[in-house]
């Protein structure tokens, strides 16, 4: 897996914090030490821990629902280790890893979740006076910050200054150790990345809008807000505004409730079961060309993450509790006329196109923001289930 893959693999449900620069540091003789940052009231939801030792430091708080611009956590990256004891200067390998990180930040500028700021946190072990370690941790954080800004400016003039102006450093000194039996692990710098997605407020300059209505029987494991944000990001990149027209909690219907698995038959487009007809009859607030997403517990008789078969005149999708964060966008893609580009065939061994939204390889396996091909955009353009801006 490439660094980019790792960096952009999302972990909205994660409770891990990863360290970026692990270390070997210190002050001599145990006179000075270092500590672990207390990430305190910062949440993984707004700052992505990043790049690090792939070693959990501590459970992080779950992100609160974002207000205004939404933010998403990123997780994973590379681990940089090896600050010398009582030193804050960067080694050659540190610089290489910072360059790699900068490349990831640069690459993010082209997708729907650009990294717009970062926070650099320096740490020390617990040897030495706490006040000294605060200063040492700050020097390390400053060194990493300066190098990152410089490298970013080198990659794209002004980018480092732009992101750096929104970013910050701090020192946690010795107060946040990761391993009391191995001081070297405590000597590190963590870099937390934050990306921002701004929800559009007007249809222009999009080419068209796709309007969804959310009907909830059961909340899926992946929050609906995450699925919606992903869908907005991806469809926004190709010029389609995704709007939520309404959200409604479905109460028990005459013969269906939230514990039911909805019978979708074999989930074949154009063919629906009585239960699908019953469910899809609930279209409060939805106009004829607007798509309703029904969040249900499961499907029967076969277990699916989602199903895009809908009764005539009632466009909609069923999304189950096991859906991935891309399932909603994928199923709506089917409603808009898109097909799997890589359906498996018995006896044929070919790789799935996991960089495509419509992959048959499972949207849970998509590692980065997937692609929608130009020919697929043309198909969506011709769909009756979008409206022009």
């Amino acid at each position, binding site marked *: 897996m490439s660094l980019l893959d790792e960096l952009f693999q999302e972990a909205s449900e994660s409770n891990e914090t990863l360290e970026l620069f692990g270390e070997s540091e210190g002050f001599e003789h145990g006179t000075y030490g270092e500590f672990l940052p207390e990430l305190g009231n910062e949440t993984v939801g707004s700052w992505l821990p990043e790049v690090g030792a792939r070693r959990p430091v501590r459970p992080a708080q779950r992100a609160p629902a974002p207000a205004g611009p939404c933010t998403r956590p990123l997780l994973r990256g590379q681990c940089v280790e090896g600050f010398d004891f009582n030193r804050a200067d960067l080694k050659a390998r540190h610089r290489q890893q910072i360059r790699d990180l900068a490349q990831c930040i640069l690459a993010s500028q082209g997708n729907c979740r650009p990294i717009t700021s970062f926070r650099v946190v320096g740490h020390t072990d617990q040897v030495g006076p706490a006040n000294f370690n605060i200063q040492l941790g700050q020097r390390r954080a400053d060194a990493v910050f300066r190098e990152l800004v410089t490298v970013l400016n080198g990659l794209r003039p002004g980018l480092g200054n732009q992101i750096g102006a929104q970013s910050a450093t701090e020192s946690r000194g010795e107060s946040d150790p990761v391993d009391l039996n191995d001081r070297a692990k405590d000597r590190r710098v963590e870099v937390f990345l934050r990306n921002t997605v701004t929800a559009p407020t007007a249809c222009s300059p999009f080419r068209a809008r796709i309007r969804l209505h959310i009907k909830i029987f059961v909340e899926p494991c992946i929050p609906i807000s995450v699925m919606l944000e992903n869908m907005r990001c991806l469809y926004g990149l190709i010029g389609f505004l995704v709007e939520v027209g309404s959200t409604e909690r479905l109460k028990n219907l005459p*013969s269906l*409730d939230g*514990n*039911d*698995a909805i*019978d979708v038959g*074999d*989930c074949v487009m154009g063919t629906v079961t*009585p239960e699908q007809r019953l469910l899809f009859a609930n279209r409060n607030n939805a106009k004829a060309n607007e798509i309703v997403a029904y969040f249900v*517990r*499961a*499907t*029967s*008789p*076969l*277990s*699916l*993450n*989602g*199903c*895009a078969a809908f009764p005539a005149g009632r466009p909609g999708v069923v999304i189950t*509790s*096991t*859906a*991935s964060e891309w*399932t909603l966008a*994928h*199923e709506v893609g089917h409603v808009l006329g898109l097909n*799997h580009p890589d*359906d*498996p*065939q*018995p006896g044929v*061994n070919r790789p*799935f196109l996991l960089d495509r939204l419509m992959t*048959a*390889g*499972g*949207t*849970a*396996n998509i590692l980065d923001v997937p692609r929608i091909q130009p020919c697929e955009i043309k198909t969506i353009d011709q769909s009756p289930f979008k409206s022009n801006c």
Partner: protein
Amino acid sequence: MPVTLKQVLQWLNSDEPNYRAAAKLGVQILPHLAALVQGNSPEHAAKAASLASLIDDDRAVEVLSLAARHPSPIVRLAAAGGLRHMKRPSATKVIMSLLDDKDHGVRKLAVKTVALRPDSALLAKAAGLGRTDPHPQIRLLASRVAGGTRLA
């Protein structure tokens, strides 16, 4: 050529697996499906149960029996739904166990499966549920099934 677990997972990873095509891989994949049902991913376990339900073999019933005992109701739902495809007599016992499931969504789906698989023991059990199940929708549904009413 033997089918590997990885190949089976390739079929099941899809958001909408093509179960009927995957079932053509045949009985050789049943050990993999049994392993998946006993694994730590309820999503894969549920999909493995669904796939097993389309393979006409007593060992597939065993896979569904494992799924019927899974701690996740999502997996038990997959077993209850899949059993409608199972014509083997050995499936009756598994359906019977799901009619006693603690999750009323699972029980309800199992009752629907009975409707598609008339069997005297199952119909008798459904009749009992029609009188005693704590969930009113299930009582109504089970009574209709036991009475031979065709479900819509």
